[in-house]
C-alpha cells in the first residue's frame, strides 16, 4: 500500500497537478441494490502524463473515467481539473470509448472529427475543417475522410475517434480501453502510433486498460487498482526497457495476483 503511492512524478515538481482525484468513492444505485465501484481512490495527473488506470475487470476503471468525464458524480471525495471541481461533461475532457459505435453514423469521417469543435462552438467552420484534416492526417486516414463510419474497419474507427478527441485539443484525453477490441497486431500498431502522436503533440491522457503489457507500453505512470470495489494498490513509474518491462510486469502481476491468493485463503 505504501509502495510509491506518494512519491511525486519526476516532472511534477515544477507545475501544479492538472487533475486531482481525492478520496473518490463512486457508487451506482440500481433499483434493487447499490454497487460501490471504487472506494476512496486518490491520484494526480500532471501535464504531459500518460497516466494509466490498471486493474482487473470490474474494478471500476471505467467508472473512474466517467467520474472524470463528469458523467458520474462521486458520493465522497472530489475531482478537480485545474483546481476547479468537475460538475458536468464538457469538451475540455474528450473521451474515447471502448465501443466502436461511438462515431456518429450519419456523419462522414471528416464531419465526425469536426462535429465536437462545431457543437461546442470552439471554432469556426473553416478552422474546424482545417484542424480536422490535420488530425485525420496524423492518424493516417486522409484517404477515407469522406467515407461514412460503417465502411471502416474497427481499428480505423478507433483511429477516427482518437483524431476526433485530439482535434479538440482538450486539457486531458480520456481513453477507455480504446484498443481492447482490436486484434493483437493492430493493437500493437495503434499503441505505437499513439506514442508517436504523443511525442508530436505532448497531450495529457488518462488511459484505462486491463492489460499489464499495454499499461507498460503506453504509460509513463501506472495506477494499480485492486479488484472490486477498486482501491488504489500502487502507483508505479513505467519502464519500457526490455529488462525493466519484464520485471515490472512480474511485479504488477504479483500485486494483482496476491489479492486473489489472499481471497482464496480467506474463504476455505
Amino acid at each position: 500500500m505504501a509502495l510509491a503511492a506518494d512519491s511525486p512524478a519526476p516532472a511534477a515538481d515544477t507545475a501544479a497537478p492538472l487533475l486531482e482525484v481525492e478520496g473518490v468513492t463512486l457508487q451506482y444505485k440500481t433499483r434493487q441494490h447499490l454497487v460501490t465501484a471504487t472506494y476512496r481512490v486518490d491520484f494526480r495527473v500532471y501535464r504531459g502524463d500518460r497516466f494509466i488506470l490498471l486493474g482487473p475487470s470490474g474494478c471500476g476503471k471505467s467508472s473512474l473515467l466517467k467520474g472524470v468525464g463528469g458523467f458520474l458524480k462521486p458520493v465522497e471525495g472530489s475531482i478537480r481539473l485545474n483546481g476547479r471541481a468537475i460538475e458536468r461533461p464538457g469538451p475540455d475532457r474528450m473521451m474515447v470509448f471502448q465501443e466502436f459505435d461511438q462515431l456518429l453514423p450519419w456523419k462522414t469521417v471528416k464531419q465526425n472529427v469536426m462535429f465536437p469543435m462545431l457543437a461546442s462552438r470552439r471554432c469556426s467552420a473553416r478552422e474546424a475543417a482545417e484542424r480536422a484534416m490535420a488530425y485525420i492526417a496524423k492518424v493516417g486516414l486522409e484517404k477515407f475522410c469522406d467515407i461514412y463510419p460503417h465502411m471502416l474497419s474497427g481499428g480505423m474507427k478507433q483511429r477516427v475517434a482518437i483524431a476526433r478527441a485530439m482535434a479538440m485539443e482538450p486539457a486531458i484525453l480520456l481513453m477507455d480501453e480504446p484498443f481492447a477490441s482490436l486484434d493483437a497486431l493492430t493493437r500493437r500498431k495503434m499503441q505505437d502510433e499513439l506514442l508517436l502522436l504523443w511525442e508530436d503533440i505532448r497531450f495529457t491522457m488518462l488511459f484505462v486498460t486491463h492489460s499489464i503489457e499495454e499499461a507498460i507500453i503506453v504509460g509513463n505512470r501506472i495506477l494499480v487498482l485492486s479488484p472490486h470495489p477498486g482501491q488504489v494498490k500502487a502507483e508505479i513509474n513505467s519502464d519500457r526497457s526490455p529488462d525493466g518491462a519484464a520485471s515490472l510486469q512480474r511485479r504488477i502481476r504479483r500485486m494483482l495476483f496476491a489479492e486473489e491468493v489472499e481471497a482464496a485463503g480467506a474463504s476455505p
Partner: protein
Amino acid sequence: MSAGRAALLPPSRPEFERETLDARNIGEIERPLSLLERLGNIAALRRLLLLVLLAAVWQAYASWLDNPLIFPTFADTVAALVKGVASGELVARTVTSIKVLVMGYAAGVAAAALLTGFAVSTRIGTDLLTTLTAMFNPLPAIALLPLGLLWFGLGNPSLIFVLIHSVLWAVSLNTFSGFLAVSQTLRMAGHNYGLRGLRYVARILVPAALPAILTGLKVGWAFAWRTLIAAELVFGVSSGSGGLGWFIYENKNELETANVFAGLFTVIMIGLVVESVVFRAVENGTVRKWGMQQ
C-alpha cells in the same frame, strides 16, 4: 461405459498439404451476367411483368363477364381514368384529398414531436406517452369520426381531427422507442461535446433514432391515407368539392362503375408513389447511406 467413451474418440487421420490451384486455372470465377439474367434481377421489371399479366387476366375475365355495371374491363377503367384526368375532375378531387391529408399529417407529426419531446425530458412525460399510446393506439381512427362530427361539424376540421389521431400514436410510439434505443455511448459522446437540451435532442437523438422515426412516419402515413379515404366515404362534401373517397362514393351511386375503379386506382397509385418513391428516396439518402439500415 469406458468402452463407450473410448468409442467417442475421433479417428486419427493422416495429415496432408496441398498446392492450391492458380486462380487462372479454376475456370469461371467471375463473369458478367447475361442480359436476360440481369433483367431478371431487376425487381421492378419483374413486378411490372406481373402487373401486365394481371391486367390481361382482368381484361379477359371482364370481357367474358360482359357486365360493365358490376365489373368494367381494364380498358374501360383506363379510359375513365384518362377522362377523369383530362376533364380535371379526378385531379381536383385528388388535390382536395391531399390538401387535407397534408394538413392532418403535419399536425399529427407536430403533435407527436411535442409529445415525445416531453416524454424524453421528464418522467411524467414518459408515463403520459406510454399510457396514452397504450390507450389510443388500438382505437381505429375512423371510430372517432362521429365524435369529430359532433365537435367540429361537417367539414375539414373533423377530418383533420381523425387524421391527427391516426398519425400521432404511431409516430410517437416509434420515435420514442427509437430514442430509448440510442446507445449509451452515443449519448455520452453527445454530452461530452457539451450538447444539452434541445440541441442534444436535435443533433444526437433524432439522427440516431432516424430509422425508427422513419418507420413511424411511414406507418403513420399509411394509417392516415386509409383513414382519410374511409372518412371521405362516410361524408366527403366539404366546402363544395369532396375528395377522392367522395368521388368513389358518388360514382357508385350513379352506377359509373368504371369511374369507381378509376378512383380506387388513383388511391392505390398515390399510396404506392409515396411509399416506394418518396419514403424510399428519403431512406436511400439517409439511413441506408449511413449503414444504419440493411
